[in-house]
């Protein structure tokens, strides 16, 4: 059946860890949009959810940093952070090692992809899962794109990775959903935490939902760092989802700068054509 659902969402740890400090009206609207995303995901009846994430030095360090990595385990754990700090209890999360292996073998014909049989999920995956599969019953296949430490994965390769992942999904009988998760502009965990470039975000999101490949891959790292902060490097996850949904368009369900969450909180979906 292949790909049945595609979307993107934010994953800032403040979304759960500092929830009590946000304006309640805005926070509740974001949570309602996450609920809508979960309902749409569930309605697509996925057998597995691929989460394309930007992990933050929880499993991958500068001693061996892959440009792309996919998990290949039947079980994962998370969060790696202090559960109280993140506001999410530590749990086991089911995976699907056999399907991971098949997807990895297929993607590797186009993209050099590392694999990991051990993976401790950080907030980059746990915050989305907290909302999208709160009972942790849906098998997860994690993907990481290096969005943290230069040299960063080129945006053109991220789009190509999305294409390869889509092709690999099309070869499978399983119903596969995919979520990209990252920030747009933000300066997380720095003295500028809470700064958000809303204009830049909205322009990027417009390119994303219209799947303008050339515009999406034209951003330079210098421009992103200057206009969108180091957190902006995480647009790589959105670009991968655009590649996986090439020729399709999408819809923004939620965008609102929420400084205490250190991000312009975003939820969007792409159609599957």
């Amino acid at each position: 059946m292949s790909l049945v659902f595609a979307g993107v969402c934010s994953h800032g740890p403040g979304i759960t860890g500092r929830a009590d400090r946000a304006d309640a009206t805005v926070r509740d609207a974001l949570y309602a949009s996450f609920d809508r995303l979960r309902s749409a995901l569930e309605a697509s009846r996925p057998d597995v959810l691929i989460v394309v994430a930007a992990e933050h030095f929880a499993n991958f360090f500068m001693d061996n940093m892959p440009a792309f990595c996919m998990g290949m385990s039947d079980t994962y754990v998370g969060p790696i952070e202090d559960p109280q700090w993140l506001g999410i209890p530590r749990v086991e999360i089911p995976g699907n090692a056999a399907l991971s292996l098949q997807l990895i073998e297929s993607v590797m014909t186009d993209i050099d992809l590392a694999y990991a049989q051990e993976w401790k999920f950080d907030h980059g995956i746990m915050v989305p899962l907290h909302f999208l599969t709160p009972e942790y019953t849906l098998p997860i296949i994690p993907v990481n794109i290096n969005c943290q430490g230069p040299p960063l994965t080129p945006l053109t390769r991220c789009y190509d990775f999305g294409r390869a992942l889509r092709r690999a999904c099309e070869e499978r009988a399983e119903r596969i959903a995919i979520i990209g998760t990252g920030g747009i502009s933000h300066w997380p965990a720095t003295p500028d935490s809470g700064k958000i470039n809303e204009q830049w975000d909205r322009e990027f999101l417009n390119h994303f939902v219209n799947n303008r490949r050339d515009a999406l891959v034209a951003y330079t790292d210098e421009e992103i760092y200057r206009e969108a902060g180091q957190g902006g490097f995480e647009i790589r996850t959105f670009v991968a989802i655009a590649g996986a949904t090439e020729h399709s368009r999408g819809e923004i369900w939620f965008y609102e700068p929420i400084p205490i969450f250190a991000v312009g909180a975003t939820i969007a979906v792409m159609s599957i054509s």
Partner: protein
Amino acid sequence: MSLYYVQKLLYQINRDEYALARFNENFDSFLAEYRLTEEEILALRNADIGLLYVMGVNGQILMHFAAMSSFAWDAYLDAMREGIRKHGPVRAGLYATVWS
């Protein structure tokens, strides 16, 4: 200046309870396994978040060390700002990047 090893040490105690226990209980012997300067050892011993930030430790690594050192979120942000006031701009790493 051995930013790589400061960050590697913090990465390891962030994700490994055994490494964290050794950091807390056998600080000197644990740190001897890394190539660190006296300034770096002192910053780690004192959980000097401001100085570690100015040295160039990535915030995605540093914020967890700050949390385990009992810094609340606002105190963590203030400590980095104070570090810049006290020690000057970030010296190395991503936040000191000059793009060519």
